[in-house]
């Protein structure tokens, strides 16, 4: 007999509403159904009513955490359409903003993941240090989120010479913090026991589901738009992509932590290499045609396609966010796990959709619906961590 446990769409810590139905047999998950659309805002249609300049602002508001990746892909698409090459200084500035965002996003994920396994201290610490990055972004762009920096043919604001020592100092401040988190995650026996071998996404499945970013790389799929199709200044700086083999939750966490080191490296190189110059070509209009833009968001490849008929508005605008493919892969990653671990697996893909506001247990035999309130799933997860702690004697 299999039971169905719906998860969502609301959750106390959750950013977006999302709805999962877990089919369980005893403790084991046998099937996962995902329902989307709580957050569907019709952006592709709206984009057709906005001018090219406004589209960049619109796509910025697709996802708050990736709020420069979408403009990045969008400007890439429009520049591909018009055959435009932004000035070099603008490319460096764009790269810096993109990498700062990657650090802030990975830290955010790490904090939430800590919360999910019952380490609230980790959450508070991580988010405390995340403020370093938020402050930097605030200073450079004028806003902590939604930076509005990108435009076709350049950026809107320059990085002032006066700010550069501060950026450097912040990066230096970040490094020991990253070491701290790396140690906390990689050496902690409880986290290891909790995440090792859980929610494995095999290399083959990763390819079938076409997953991207830090969901694909820990499964041995070496894709990274920054390397494969270098945009902005990524072709001019030196960095590595982190590829791991295990495909479990632990590998996903490690992958993200190691990536932050690379981001710091990229930012420092950009600051060193940046030369004074113009930051913006004044682009008046775009020709008719098609453009494709890609960018590596913290969660994977963002893909934008635009079609222009030569007017001021796009004729069609298509957006593919990385989570679109990554979330679908949960259908296989969750199967065979316990309910307590399923929460973690769903979270590992980031955005963490472990929405647990309402649990409805559907008993298949007499179609009885039982509505439970509260964070039962998170509690399950916390209990599992406690149990492991006891077993390990820590």
């Amino acid at each position, binding site marked *: 007999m299999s039971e169905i446990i719906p998860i969502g769409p609301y959750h106390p810590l959750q950013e977006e509403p999302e709805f999962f139905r877990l089919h369980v047999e005893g403790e084991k998950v046998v099937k996962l159904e995902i329902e989307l659309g709580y957050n569907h805002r019709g952006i592709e249609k709206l984009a057709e009513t906005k001018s090219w300049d406004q589209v960049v602002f619109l796509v910025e508001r697709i996802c708050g955490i990736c709020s420069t990746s979408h403009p990045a892909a969008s400007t890439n698409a429009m520049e*591909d359409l018009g055959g435009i090459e932004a000035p070099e200084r603008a490319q460096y500035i764009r790269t810096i903003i993109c990498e700062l965002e990657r650090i802030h996003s990975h830290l955010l994920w790490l904090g939430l993941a800590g919360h999910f396994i019952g380490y609230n201290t980790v959450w508070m610490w991580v988010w405390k240090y995340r403020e370093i990055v938020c402050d930097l972004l605030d200073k450079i762009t004028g806003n902590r989120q939604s930076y509005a920096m990108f435009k076709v043919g350049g950026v809107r604001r320059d990085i002032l010479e006066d700010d550069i020592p501060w950026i450097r100092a912040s990066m230096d401040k970040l490094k020991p913090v990253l070491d701290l988190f790396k140690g906390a995650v990689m050496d902690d026996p409880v986290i290891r026991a909790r995440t090792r071998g859980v929610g494995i996404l095999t290399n083959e499945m990763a390819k079938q589901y*076409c997953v991207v970013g830090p969901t694909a790389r820990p499964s041995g799929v070496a894709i990274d738009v920054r390397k*494969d199709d270098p945009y902005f200044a990524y072709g001019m700086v030196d960095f590595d992509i982190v590829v791991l083999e295990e495909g479990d939750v632990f590998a996903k966490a490690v992958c993200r932590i190691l990536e932050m080191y690379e981001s710091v490296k990229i930012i420092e190189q950009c600051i060193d290499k940046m030369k004074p110059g113009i930051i913006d070509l004044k682009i008046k209009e775009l020709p008719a045609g098609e453009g*494709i833009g890609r960018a590596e968001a913290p969660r994977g490849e963002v893909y934008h*396609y635009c*079609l222009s008929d030569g007017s001021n508005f796009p004729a069609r605008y298509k957006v*593919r966010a990385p989570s*679109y493919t990554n979330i679908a892969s949960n259908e296989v990653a969750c199967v065979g796990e316990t309910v307590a671990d399923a929460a973690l697996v769903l979270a590992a893909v980031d955005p963490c959709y472990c929405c647990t506001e309402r649990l409805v247990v559907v008993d298949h035999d007499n179609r009885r619906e039982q509505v439970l309130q509260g964070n039962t799933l998170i509690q399950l997860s916390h209990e599992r961590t406690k149990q492991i702690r006891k077993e390990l004697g820590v």
Partner: protein
Amino acid sequence: MTWNEIKADIKGAFDGKILKWHEHNDTRIYVDIEPADLVEFSRYIFEKLGSRFIIASAVDTPRGGIEILYHFDFFKLPQVFSLRVFLPKPKPEVESLASVIKGTEWIEREMAELFGITFSNHPNPVHLLLPDDWPEGNYPLRRDQ
């Protein structure tokens, strides 16, 4: 494989089935094919050439039909390879790719509800984004709506 080898391979294998080969620039390639060849073509580049499916975008064109672009890329290469099929209205229909590539399942459901395209043999043809009680025949991304 380098891009030139892949290009020669595709051109050789599908000689006569390629309606148009357009290179916007070095890294953006658009290829028009017949809808009937789509499954075979995608199977070839996905399984034999080891490409990755990125996404599909549907466009309601003024030419009296709907175009679908299936975007692929080849690992480690900067090229984006887009297969274009044209489906005439009023009944745009094409074979589902979900049996070949699992990752196409969601986007096909999305295109079905936003554009009213029928994907034959789709494993799970239900709404993805829109509410279940969304009125039949109202396709928000079509131009005539």
